[in-house]
């Protein structure tokens, strides 16, 4: 039973991590129908910024929790700034262009950012300081769940609630929904579409940055390539749940994380990724637009 619980919680951790990245993917996709390949890089930049800030502050001998908070805030600010700038440079001029061109532009941006970090920092794995304190009350069950994992669950839940609130109940969320339904129509009724797209990128990048800080401090090391791998997995999760739908992204991430965890735990760890992709392929064969995706029938 303990083993099952361990796998379950491990899957939950994975799922939360995927969810934090997948949310950004799905939001951007919902609004401009673009697979933002550079999204994983934003997450990576968030982790790097946090590492730098945390490094400086810990040398100054600050309190661990304070470092975590400040490093996260700065990482969020910088990641959002990067997301905003990327959109302005690489995607905005391509709004009217064929969609594949925008995709290639995103791939180019992703490459650029990877090597930018590689050149400016290092190609080696960097140790990431453990920013999340060990909670006393978790000591008896420490072999099942680590305190960093608990923090990940809580933060993911909070982020999701906030995002749902933002989308469902605020004016800007309403505008976002309108833009994703029909951009031209939204423009006609007075929505500043450019602003909405920028906001989407800001919010998506901020979630990715939070993910970056949490995951880096959970795993304990980062390098310039983490964004690409995490980005692909999160993208798979987003598609699994039905891309463009926010609850879908979370559900897809959880399903993917859980099934990966159980597969590794009970069957084989060699074929973990094979299983993840097979799972995706079979899900999409039976539900061609993801678990929660809208099955939009085409009108002629």
């Amino acid at each position, binding site marked *: 039973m303990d083993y099952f619980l361990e796998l379950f919680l491990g899957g939950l951790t994975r799922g939360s991590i995927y969810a934090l990245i997948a949310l950004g993917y799905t939001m951007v*996709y919902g609004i401009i129908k673009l*697979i933002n390949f550079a999204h994983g890089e934003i997450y990576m*930049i968030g982790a790097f*910024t946090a*590492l*730098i800030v945390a*490094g*400086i502050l*810990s*040398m100054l001998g600050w309190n661990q929790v304070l470092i975590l908070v400040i490093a996260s805030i*700065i990482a969020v600010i*910088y990641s959002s*700034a*990067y997301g905003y*700038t990327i959109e302005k*440079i*690489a995607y905005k*001029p*391509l709004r009217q*262009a*064929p969609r*594949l*061109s*925008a*995709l*290639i*532009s995103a*791939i*180019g*941006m992703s*490459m*650029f*950012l990877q*090597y*930018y*970090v*590689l*050149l*400016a*920092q290092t190609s080696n794995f*960097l*140790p990431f*300081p453990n920013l999340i304190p060990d909670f006393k009350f978790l000591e008896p069950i420490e072999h099942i769940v680590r305190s960093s994992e608990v923090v990940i669950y809580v933060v993911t839940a909070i982020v999701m609630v906030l995002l749902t609130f933002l989308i469902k109940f605020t004016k800007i969320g309403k505008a976002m929904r309108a833009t994703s339904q029909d951009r031209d129509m939204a423009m006609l009724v007075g929505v500043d579409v450019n602003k909405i797209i920028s906001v989407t990128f800001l919010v998506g990048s901020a979630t990715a940055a939070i993910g970056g800080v949490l995951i880096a401090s959970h795993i304990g090391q980062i390098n310039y390539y983490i964004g690409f791998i995490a980005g*692909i997995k999160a993208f*798979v999760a987003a*598609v699994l749940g039905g*891309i463009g739908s926010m609850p879908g992204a979370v559900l897809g991430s959880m399903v993917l994380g859980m099934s990966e965890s159980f597969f590794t735990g009970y069957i084989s760890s*060699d*074929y973990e*990724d*094979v299983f993840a*992709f*097979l799972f*995706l*392929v079979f899900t*999409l*064969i039976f539900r*061609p637009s993801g678990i929660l995706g809208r099955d939009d029938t*085409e009108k*002629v």
Partner: protein
Amino acid sequence: MFSFNEIKKSLLVALWFMFLTFPIMVIRVNTIYNTIEWRWGRMLMVGIGSFFLSFLWRFLHKRQETGQKKAEPGETETLTLTQRLITDKRFSIPGIIAISIFALIFPFVFSMYQTNIMTSALIYVVVGLGLNIVVGLAGLLDLGYVAFYLVGAYTYALLNVHFGLGFWMVLPISAFFALLFGVILGFPVLRLRGDYLAIVTLGFGEIIRLVMENWNEFSFGPSGIANIPRPGFFGMELSLHQNIIWVYFVMVGMAIFTIFVVRRLQDSRLGRAWIALREDEIACQAMGIDKRRTKLSAFGLGAMWAGMGGAVFAAKTTYINPASFTLWESIIILCVVVLGGMGSILGVICGAMVLILLPEYLRAFSEYRMLIFGAILVIMMVFRPGGMITAVRKTHQFKGLKDPQSTK
């Protein structure tokens, strides 16, 4: 032009980029020795660089916008200079002759190293043209195309290891296996469209690679297969140098063959069905085109070229392992197609040449080459979203019509 307003804008851009690159460019923290390195010089460089680049960026934008405005009035499609050069026989025939002569003497003029690079570029021409069928003509976004490349390469390598079959024997088998895999993949994804299709093909590519990596008994796992023989030359022994030249000519021949076949395919009934499918699936079905068969044939025929390219790749490098067939490879091939110009054969050829030769010649910039490569992809797409050479739509004119616009 350099008004106060412009300078102010550029200054703001420079400040923004200085802020943006501040932590990652300037600070380097060493958490083991607890040291911080501040590199303020870089910040200055970023500032000055982005200040001037923003001028250039705006200038290019303005030029592009005025270009579009000029094109907008008169609805007639104006051909660009390159397109006119291609379509006009007076220029295209001498051009083709010049290129053929260049291709013939290339290995004798340039070094072995250059010939080798050129051979890889030609492999990408063939593979790119194959993907062009799937993405450019049929409009099916395939992110796992490298799987077929892998199938081709491993077919040759494994058949050679186990049964000692030669290159020429296996080449058609490789092509056939890749085609088979293309159709097998095609079946389940018939219903999917757009990005769902992209992600499933991506998954398929990764599955095949990961299986190859883990199934040691079958594929020799991550250590790969070494000592794959190069293609034979009518049973004669060749030195290494001669062999490289021979592979080069094999590839030239194959590229010409591919160009010929793809050209014919494009104008065939099937090719027109692909284009129709890309434009509008429902209208296409209403016209009586069998969607299932058309899609499957696009997947299969596209994959076939990748299989052939893969076999040549295995023979050229004499060593393969799963690490040569990652997702990046698929992305590079996709970039070849999109950057060159989707649906245009000449575009794909140019795209392959640029994308494969550019990183090689950028080696002078050593570690900066991938950075520059990424930047070029973005800039290219921003300023020429249709690719280098956009496909010319086939148009038919009524010769007899007395219209002032076509008085020829």
